[in-house]
């Protein structure tokens, strides 16, 4: 834990320095030298780079403070002898963090709704060890609800990825739902709920048997 505290402090200090460097940058068309914008202008007011530069300067000083606390074993994480991430923590990152990363990554390729479905099925069936029926029902109903809510009701289309290029799925689906009136869409939401309840009851019976 102490090593992690020190490494994090160094990383934050480096980040502050990098942002300070970036804050001093002038656009090429202004022709001014770097760091000419971190002080006060002729009118007495601070210039554009002043705020981010000095904010990061304070952050840099505090990172050094955390670093010293870490080296001198003054802060609680630096005093703790335990590892930064134990086996369980690494497990959480690999079995949950990585799939969330893939959820976002796959969005660009197979659309957000499909990556949601895969993510839900993985999480429920593989990680949660829920019954196959319940996991598939959730993977089917949740993205459909999301589609009805975001694409149809709120008219905020979520990304369709490469699928949208030869869209044989979303365009007909969208046209179908857009032709329905409000009450029918409400019924569709309800139908999803019925499927979920039925699936959870079926899977419970499976567990009992």
């Amino acid at each position, binding site marked *: *834990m102490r090593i*992690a505290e020190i490494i*994090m402090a160094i990383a*934050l200090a480096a980040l*502050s320095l990098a*942002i300070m460097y970036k*804050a001093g*940058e002038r*656009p090429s068309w*202004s022709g001014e030298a770097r760091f000419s914008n971190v002080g*006060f202008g002729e*009118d*007495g*007011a*601070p*210039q*554009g780079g002043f*705020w*981010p530069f000095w*904010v*990061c300067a*304070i*952050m840099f000083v*505090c*990172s050094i403070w*955390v670093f010293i*606390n870490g080296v001198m074993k003054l*802060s*609680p*994480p630096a005093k703790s002898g335990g590892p*930064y*991430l134990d086996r*369980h*923590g690494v497990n*959480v*990152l690999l079995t*949950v*963090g990585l799939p*969330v990363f893939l*959820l*976002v990554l796959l*969005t*660009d390729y197979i659309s*957000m709704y499909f990556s*949601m479905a895969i*993510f*839900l099925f993985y*999480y*429920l069936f593989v990680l*949660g060890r*829920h019954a196959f029926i319940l996991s598939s029902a*959730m993977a089917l109903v*949740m*993205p459909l609800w*999301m589609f009805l809510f975001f694409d149809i*009701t*709120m008219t*905020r289309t*979520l*990304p369709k990825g490469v699928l949208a290029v030869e869209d044989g799925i979303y365009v007909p689906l969208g046209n179908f739902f857009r032709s329905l009136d409000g009450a029918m869409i409400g019924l569709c939401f309800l139908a999803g709920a019925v499927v979920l309840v039925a699936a959870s009851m079926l899977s419970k019976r499976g567990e009992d048997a």
Partner: protein
Amino acid sequence: MEVLGLLLDGILIALEPANLLICFIGVVIGLFVGAMPGLGSVNGVAILLPTIFFIKQSTGSDAAPMLFLAAIYYGAMYGGAISSIMLGIPGASTAVATTFDGRPLALKGRAEQALVTAALASFIGGTIANIFFTGFAPPLASVALKFGNPEIFALMLLAFATFVGLGGDDIPKTIISIMLGLVCASIGFDVSEGEPRLQFFDLTGFSRPINFLVLAIGVYGVGEMLWTLHTTRGDTEMSKADVSLAKIKTAAGNTYREGWKGTSIGSSLGFFVGILPAAGATPGSLMSYGVAKMTSSKPDEFGKGSIDGVAAPEAANNSASTGAMLPMMTLGIPGSPTTAVLLTGLVLLELEPGPRLFQDQPDFVWPVIGSFYISNLIAVLVNLAFIPLFLWMLRMPFTILAPIIFILSTAGVYAATDSMFDVWLMFWFGLAAFMLRILNYPLAPAALAIVLGGITEAKLRQSLQWSDGSFGIFFNPFFDRDGSGSTYWIAPIIAWIAVILILMPLFQVIKRRFLRGPARPSHWQG
């Protein structure tokens, strides 16, 4: 009297069927969110913030979306108690103090007593705080209307200083967190000179300030879920509760006799702690628990199932959540991370938060305040009526809830920003929040700083332009602002209080060196 008339109008608007339905749905979602371990009011409102566009679109009013968010906030304060009592793990950090006595009561087989006490104390705490709010808000707003640039900057300084002085977390880490938030808010363009700045790697996503929502959902959606999965390991055991109308009646009687003192302490103390920007509901409830124990005639019963011990923190967390709304609505400074999200909601609805809101938008302000009263009433009724349902819902495995939160976070950020770049940013923020949290970095200061960053910088620059670059405009009451020779006291007083607050930890270090005082608790989220 004028205030009462406005309030009555507001309550009547909040009672319109559509608004009532919105409050009801909000309260139910809030109760659920609050009851689920690992989710609190801030997660609930952050993840559901994008829905305000939909509510505005379908109702056509600005007030309705805020009614919804405020109702979630209220519901969550009630809901937190349910898992604190039944599972022994706080549903939200605001309900930490409720476990101290709520759990022992449940283990003694008096779970229904604890649940009813929590609900009634919450109701009374919320109602008293609403009355305080109604009384304090209009005068505070009219005073704040006279604030100029230096006064507003001094207020912002005070908001950050309270985190350093009163937040109770590691000081350099708190400051780093604030600075990270401020930097995120300054990315994009320098507004007054039109120059691009901090556009890292020339990515177009960095050509505007980072949206607060992206940070909030990253930290409180993805980061918080990872953290909860990391910290909660084995399964917990749920107590049994036998709820019937007769039992609720007896429990209410007991609450009245044995819990009035805790309730009154929590209601009043909670409100004033809630107003402070760095505090919020968690320290409010912890402090009220402490004070109730200190002043009790039976302090030995605390920790073993005292009714006062359940009533004080529950009254306080509801009261503090209303208290936190006061600076948000009147000054534009959020009192807690949840109110920071609500503030963003105001901005998204194209309303300018701050003192002018009361003057320019009475049609918005008063129905929202009226809805505080209504939501509070709905929350206590729904809570008492549906205790069995919530107990059933608590059995929902975390392995079903967690993936739903992850996909809601992803879809929510995209729906609100229309940019995959922001979805990625949200993911990285979540991961960074998780890594930083293990090392005790507080993240709430970053959430507040990203909201206040833009206005803080603007006010600093405008003030310094006014004073030709002299910081005397903030600290010296005799500083001549306009050549008229008049004195200005408000900004210097606020600024010096901020300086004292920043230096306070230094005093504490000195005190600890010589007197060896105990350390203060450092968990809060509120």
